[in-house]
């Protein structure tokens, strides 16, 4: 299982059978502009070109601190059935409402596991490509 946050694979490397992607931490423009709701959110998805079962995708939202970074929320979604080649398994449900508009930098971390070809395969931790400052204190 491979993991990526948007980087292109090297030309010499064979294309991995699975790909885990994590997006940048963001506030939904639509929810803010139409409903004045602020929530920081990170999306992740996994796609394989071979069958897989029991796909589990975990997404963590982190915020940067002066001395250390702080975990905000972790959500794990387990898709119990078989996922066919080309199908995508998503974790689109990791979000946390903002308590205030304090400028805070966030990033996402995702990792996954799946049962593929008779054994468990693990994707290493993938970080968002960018750490984004948002007007969202949590």
């Amino acid at each position, binding site marked *: 299982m491979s993991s990526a946050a948007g980087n292109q694979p090297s030309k010499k490397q064979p294309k991995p059978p699975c790909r885990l*992607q994590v*997006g*940048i931490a*963001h*506030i*939904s*423009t*639509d*929810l*803010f*502009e139409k*409903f004045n*709701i602020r*929530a920081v*959110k990170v*999306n*992740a*998805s996994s796609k394989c070109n071979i069958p897989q079962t029991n796909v589990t995708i975990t997404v963590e939202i982190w915020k940067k601190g002066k001395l250390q970074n*702080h*975990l*905000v*929320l*972790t*959500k*794990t*979604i*387990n*898709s*119990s*059935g078989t996922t066919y080649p080309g199908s995508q398994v*998503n974790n*689109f*449900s990791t*979000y*946390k*409402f903002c308590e205030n508009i304090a400028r805070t930098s966030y990033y996402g971390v995702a990792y996954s596991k799946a049962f593929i070809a008779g054994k468990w395969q693990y994707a290493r931790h993938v970080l968002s490509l960018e750490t*984004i400052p*948002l007007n969202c204190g949590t």
Partner: protein
Amino acid sequence: MESEEVFLTSEQKRRESVVIRECFRLMQDERSRYEKQANEFLDLGYFSSETNGYLFEFSIEDNQFACTATSKLPTGDNYSTFAPIPEARADQVEELIELFAQSDAGLIQ
């Protein structure tokens, strides 16, 4: 305002909006019930509920609030949520109110 559209289809974006708005509404309209649940949970260290075909079990694991959602359908997706425990009890109640509301609002699929 940063946005990210790369992963979600228009239908998924619609569902995202519906679920997060519902969660936001629940945190306000059901606040009194959630506060009672939060205090019960903080006193006992465990709370469970059933909503929308899921069994939700709240506990404390690895010094975090944990919510495990188990589908009553064998083919349904299961999920779990972990959140760091704030120091002050009032903040703990607020954190739990959001966890309860997120559980009741459902997944963005």
